[in-house]
């Protein structure tokens, strides 16, 4: 009973939030808040699937980090008040015309083909079995990260190092000699 309630709430949040991101065109700040809603809903969806750690990660990384990053990024351009920046250039130049809809449609087609291809194998063997007993996903994840996937764990650190250095380099003023 509660499973369905949680799922429905998450699903509504995801759908409404995503549609909001798509169709709120006049104010990019409102679109950001719609994205926040969708990301919150995704955390709920993870919780429904029993992936509690992933749900918490979704909250920490996306709701707490990515959304604030986007809000700051919008503030770099002076907020969502005007669609033109101070140089008279349109901020979202190519959104919402025929070209973007065609590109989005092609993307959706490709992604759904890939997803169907992946799902087909799973669905063939699919039987409605009871979900396994609830146990801690954290310890499973931790054990896998330091045994089977230790290389991926360390390489991800290098990836993050690259991102850190990249963020620092990009943000430096052009022509800085330091």
């Amino acid at each position, binding site marked *: 009973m*509660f*499973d369905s*309630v*949680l799922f429905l*709430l998450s699903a509504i949040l995801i759908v409404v939030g995503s549609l909001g991101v798509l169709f709120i065109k006049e104010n990019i700040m409102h679109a950001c808040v719609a994205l926040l809603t969708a990301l919150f809903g995704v955390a709920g969806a993870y*919780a*429904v699937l*029993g992936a509690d*750690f992933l749900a918490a*990660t979704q909250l*920490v*990384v996306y709701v*707490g*980090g*990515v959304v*604030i*990053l986007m809000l*700051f*990024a919008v*503030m*770099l*351009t*002076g*907020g*969502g*008040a005007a669609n033109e*920046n*101070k140089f008279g250039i349109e901020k979202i130049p190519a959104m919402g015309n025929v070209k973007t809809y065609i590109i989005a449609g092609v993307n959706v087609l490709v992604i759904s083909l890939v997803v169907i291809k992946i799902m087909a194998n799973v669905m063939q063997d699919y039987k409605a079995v*009871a*979900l*396994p*007993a*609830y146990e801690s996903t*954290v*310890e499973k*994840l*931790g*054990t896998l*990260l*330091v045994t089977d996937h*230790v290389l991926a*764990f*360390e390489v*991800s*650190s*290098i990836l*993050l*190092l690259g*991102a*850190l*250095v990249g*963020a*620092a380099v990009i*943000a*430096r*003023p052009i*022509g*800085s*000699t*330091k």
Partner: protein
Amino acid sequence: MSSHNLDVYMPILILIGIGIALVFGAILFGKLIRPHNPSRLKEQAYECGEDPVGVAWSNFNVRFYVVSLIFIIFDVESALMFPVASVFKKFNEIGRGGIILCTFIVFVMILVSGVIYCWRKGDLDWVKSFHLNLDESSEKNTQEAS
């Protein structure tokens, strides 16, 4: 406990519901009893008595953006470190603590090297834009002054 019990998330949902209901409830209840005399002056943004000039939504400094970029990287890092940290004790008890310690230290050290790089290049300075492109001596002066 039944299999796959999601009841533990109930209080979270209830608390969030109470929060939303409380905010709307209090404001709607207040609407019945509070005065409502809007005037143009009252609805202006406060700017120490002057008429506000323009809107507040101006282009902000890039440093806020950099801070949040670095934050996200640390955030993802912590999301990866949490599961490893929570199995540390268990591995230690079965005598395999050395492996996990090495993994952990390598992971943190790679991150630390990034922090050291940013530190040495001055990306962690908040007021860095004031003393860029200056020679050594004047830079020192600026730092002392700030």
